């Protein structure tokens, strides 16, 4: 029960805030303490393979925070979440050429691909956005996941105000700027997608000519 409440909040954190519907019952006040037994297990259980280096199990503050859902959903955790979001927000850069919208056709290909960054890939394997894994986007693609919300008609129903454009840009660059424990990877932060690729994804969502907005 606790877990499902936690994950709901993970997904719709901001929506809940917006509706003032947040309700937290917990007495956890500090983050999980480091456990040497556990760390020993983690360190001895993994090894480097190809591009997947052993240091991938080292956590940054965001990952550490989100690995303790009980604390993350506590009152003290909520304050810490705001700090984490701030840190992530600070890492986002606007497009260097000032262009937010690229080519939706390339965007669709990036959204379809779930490849890259595994030990069976190489450093030169293009990394996909994997967007359809979690989102409905173009309705024509019936094989889509539902971990994230549907993005069908994203631009058509939300308009194309500058605020929306910047919000969408930020969200793809670093989703944790809005929701500390969002399930969405930080595409710019970990250099998973480059600026051009993010512009193309922006077009897929916002270009009036994109199939998403038909």
């Amino acid at each position, binding site marked *: 029960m606790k877990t499902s409440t936690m994950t709901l909040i993970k997904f719709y954190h901001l929506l809940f805030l917006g509706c003032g519907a947040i309700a937290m019952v917990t007495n956890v006040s500090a983050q999980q303490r480091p456990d040497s037994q556990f760390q020993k297990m983690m360190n001895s259980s993994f090894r480097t393979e190809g591009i997947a280096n052993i240091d991938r199990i080292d956590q940054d503050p965001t990952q550490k925070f989100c690995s303790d859902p009980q604390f993350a959903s506590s009152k003290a955790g909520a304050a810490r979440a705001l700090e984490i979001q701030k840190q992530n927000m600070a890492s986002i850069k606007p497009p260097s050429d000032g262009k937010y919208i690229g080519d939706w056709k390339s965007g669709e290909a990036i959204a*379809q691909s779930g490849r890259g960054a595994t030990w069976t890939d190489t450093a030169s394997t293009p990394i996909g956005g994997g967007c359809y894994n979690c989102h409905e986007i173009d309705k024509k693609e*019936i094989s889509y996941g539902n971990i994230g919300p549907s993005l069908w008609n994203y631009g058509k129903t939300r308009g194309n105000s500058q605020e929306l454009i910047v919000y969408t840009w930020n969200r793809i660059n670093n989703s944790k700027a809005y929701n500390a424990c969002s399930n969405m990877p930080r595409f710019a932060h970990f250099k998973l997608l480059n600026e051009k690729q993010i512009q193309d994804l922006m077009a897929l969502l916002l270009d009036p000519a994109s199939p998403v907005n038909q």
Partner: protein
Amino acid sequence: MNQQRRSLLKYSAVFGLMASAGLISVAQAEEWNKAAFEGKSLDDVFKSLGTSSPDKSAAVTLNAPDIAENGAVVPVGISSTLKAEQMAILVEKNPSTLAAQFFLPAGTEAFVTTRIKMGQTSNVYALVKADGKWSMALKEIKVTLGGCGG
């Protein structure tokens, strides 16, 4: 291609031996229909099976899902109220159109189920030959991308 041809030749030789040794019955030793299996279009295969264009018939049922979770394994079944002597499964958009064919002696039901590979979403045809005449049923099977795609 050459490799394949060579192994096919080798196969024919071995098969000939098996037939003469009585391992496989003479009735079955009507050859593996190479021309039909190498057909690249519906028309090619229809021709190799000795028909121009089979009629669609309610007497033929193609039992398959609308969506295949994985193209590597697509369950396909044919059943018919006709007295079928031969059946075939065709996939329009596969590199080779004919997937399999079956010969049914008297006493064997007009029913078969197997599993095939599909490279992409395509129409799939179930053909049934009864009294020397081919009939068919068809449906589109969607092949989806599954998993995380990594």
